[in-house]
């Protein structure tokens, strides 16, 4: 099955630069300090943030900054067939590490010495782009928890079919041999890249195009996330009677 038809439509009917529908929700888990639910197409992710709080293991604490722990896991029902995954699953460990690295450079950790911030991300339904969705959900959850950050960390994946870059790959597209999969995460205000991965091979000339496509995708997602955060803030502020809006 061709990922991109000669008429310029992908298998689900999107054009190469169109994202899937995105929905978000914040503050849904009361016991967590911050939480967010993030949906991108059929990929559904739940993120919960605890912290900053006192470190559980004294030996791991840092004297001048907070440490960030991250746990990424996929629910057994998240893929088409029920698959039992152990916690130490290689892929989960890799993605947990990636998310941690993104936020270590984004969160203002120097404000909270000798503390830890825990980020838990659970994939409820996986249809491609799970690590990007995980990062976006975690960003929103951190904001919900009120943890100060330099900027949003926004992630999006891109690929390319026959030289045409496509943004936001779903499961069929990222597992297909016809397109490489390049998930990236950026800080939108400065366009600094905090995560860049790629599988398959890509010619150096095409790389620039695909990277730009992913960055544009991140910006589109950023707009949606900012709108959501503003709405949420308005809600909170009016419900506490602080401002009449």
């Amino acid at each position, binding site marked *: 099955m061709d990922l991109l038809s000669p*008429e310029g439509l992908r298998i689900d009917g999107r*054009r190469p630069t169109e994202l899937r529908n995105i929905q978000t929700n914040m503050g849904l888990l009361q016991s967590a300090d911050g939480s967010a639910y993030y949906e991108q197409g059929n990929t559904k992710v739940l993120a919960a943030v605890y912290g900053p709080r006192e470190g559980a293991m004294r030996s791991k604490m840092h004297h001048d900054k907070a440490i960030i722990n991250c746990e990424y896991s996929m629910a057994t029902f998240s893929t088409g067939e029920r698959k039992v995954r152990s916690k130490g699953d290689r892929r989960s460990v890799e993605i947990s590490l990636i998310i941690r690295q993104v936020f270590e450079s984004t969160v203002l950790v120097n404000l909270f010495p000798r503390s830890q911030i825990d980020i838990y991300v659970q994939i409820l339904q996986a249809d491609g782009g799970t690590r990007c969705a995980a990062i976006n959900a975690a960003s929103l959850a951190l904001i919900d928890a009120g943890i100060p950050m330099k900027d949003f960390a926004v992630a999006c994946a891109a690929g390319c079919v026959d030289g045409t870059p496509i943004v936001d790959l779903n499961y069929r597209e990222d597992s297909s041999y016809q397109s490489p999969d390049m998930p990236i995460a950026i800080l939108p205000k400065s366009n600094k890249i905090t995560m860049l991965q790629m599988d398959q091979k890509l010619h150096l000339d095409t790389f620039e195009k695909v990277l730009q496509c992913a960055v544009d995708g991140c910006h589109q997602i950023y707009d949606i996330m900012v709108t959501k955060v503003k709405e949420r803030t308005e809600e909170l502020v009016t419900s506490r009677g602080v401002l009449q809006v």
Partner: protein
Amino acid sequence: RMKRVDDRILFIKTKRGKIRRIVREHYTRRDLSEDIFLLQDKELVEVSGYPYIIPDSATITKYLEVLENPLVKNIIFPQTFTRALQIHNLSIYKKIRAITDDDRKHSIVFNNENFTNTFTKKREGEYYQDRNDRAILMLIKWLRDSTHLNSVLVSENETLRSQSKMMGVNVLSMRDIIQEYYPSLIDLLDSVESLLESPDIDDAFSEYADYYDETVIESGIKSGLYIRGTIDVDEYNSDEAYISLGETNKLGKSIFIPGKVLRNRAIHGDIVAVEVLPKNHWVSPSRFLNNKDTEVSTYNNHDVPCGRIIGIISRSNRDYVCTLKENSTGSYILVDPWDRKIPSIRINTRQQENLIDKRILVKIDNWPISSNFPNGHYVGHIGVIGEKETEIKVLLAENEISIDNFTPSMLADLPDNDVNNPWKCNDSEIESRRDIRNWRVFSIDPPGCQDIDDALSIQELPGNRYRVGVHIADVTHFVKENSLLDVEARSRGTSVYLVDRRIDMLPTVLSERICSLRSGTDRYALSVIWELDENGKIMDTWFGRTVIRSSYELSYYQAHAILNDNPEQKEFFGDDYAPLKADLHNLFNLYTKIRKKRLSAGGLEFDGPEIKFELNEDGDPINFKVKKELEVMKLIAEFMIFANVSVAKKIYQHFPDSAILRRHPYPREDRFDDLKDAAYTKNIDIDVSSNLTLSKSIRMCKRNFAPNERKMLSQLATRAMQEAKYISSGMFETHEYYHYGLAVPYYTHFTSPIRRYAGKIYESFVINIRCDRS
């Protein structure tokens, strides 16, 4: 503009047989109606009378061959069916795409499933076929209500027909469409329909083996267990065939497929998968068998690697010219193809008495495992056997050369040019080109030549230097990339020259008038202008678009006469004679030096004599003459080679990965055996290690061999050559671009854009590189 409406829920069987439930997103959008409107805008003269056909799934599968016919246009394939076909029947899907990719057929795949106005969700408990029917009806309804297209649903499905009639939508059968709009295709329709009715003939031939499963073949080829190649049936013995291997295969040059059983129903030209037989099954081709061998020897050193065909990857599937066998009776008859490499074909026809003396076109459909012969169907007829016109058409058909006229829509974009209103260069275009109309430019061609694609100019410069220009007709200015005319020229590829006629790649109005560099009028050209020293060494090169005004259209004989100071020419040209003669002399001197350099680098010259036929008023040949070769012809050829080399180098510099070059690989040493044996009869040893040693050795033969013997040696040498090929520079190493015959490191076909499509591509390349106008 995009709305998510649905999740497509599908149940798919995995390789192990488990059923999985898959959910996929499905978006609909509003911006697809533009595809349809684009069709409407292309209101081309001859397509506006034809309705827009929307075939249903069964119609597509059954009548695909009719839809593929070049005459049938205006087809809208609904995405509902192409989506399913891409998965279940890839070969039909590819053919549909071939139809929509061909601009001349004015057809599209319309994405009705992703279009908001024509998308419909599957209802609870509804079968998917019923949902598809509803989707098609919505499409037709939308076409009728929102566009001005005269659209027709073509279906034989009863439910669909009755429902459309209720909606007031036009429904026809394929036969109705053909009878009303394409009556010349009625034969084709009959044969397609009769094909479906025919039962499988069972010859009870039981020796063919089943083909291996596709996945087994694919993985076998990847792992090297099986070999993929094109099957080449032996011209002289149709029981034997070969599969060519690449140059570096350890098995040798080819795999031999002896006999019909091992060939397993493959037909000459098919791409097949071969399994090599174990060594003890290897035999020798019949041409090596000596009649004197009465004993079967256990060691026969003519045994070659043998194999058997285990699968057909793709059929070559062209139309074959055939004739009926004598005494053909009954409705299923065998026909003999004109091409000896193709087996007899079984067809079904009711027109036997009519066809018994004609050459007919037949297409092969399939070859069942229990059948002795392949099944095919009658496509059309060419003419009476033995008549000159018929036989010429047979040759053209067998070589897949199209003889259709250029359609009015292809000619629509060309400027007008007639006696009262001849085409002229346009001032603004002249502004954007280098104006060299004041140069003395002339062309030298065969007498009576109308399609002049090249012209030369030369000026003396101080310091014993010369400015030499080769000016080529600018075809790309008139034939825009991907216009209908461009697509047609591309599919023709080259002009074809027969004894009494020429089948043009481009319409006459271009080839003989507007593009042709006629004398006395302004013409657009693409020029290569060198500054050469007296030895022909290039000091500077300029490429670019120019405007020229050729002063003289010379014939080879005229140019030759001028060079030899012929008094008639002196009188004819008057005052112009002296400068023209000086130019020709200067060109001649440079030519001698340039040619000498090339030949001493190993360039070969084995051209045999060329023959020209004399025809009477009926067009029948009555005599032939050997064309006299004049040195002027070599002069022109040498400068064209010079230009091609310069352009090839320049293009390669700018497009190192994707330049179209022409390479001539080294011949295989063993092909020189006949030549070496012939020379050895007079104790001469031909050194074939390089083109230079080869030409030197052959020249040495001058002393020992008579003139006609030397001609034979040249011919034997030519036979050893490989064919020159067009290549993309990115696919080969730099040293492989070498042209053995011409002894140049880079070569291409830039100089004949009117009669060779490669020349036209080159013009595009040159234009794409920024050139200096000064």
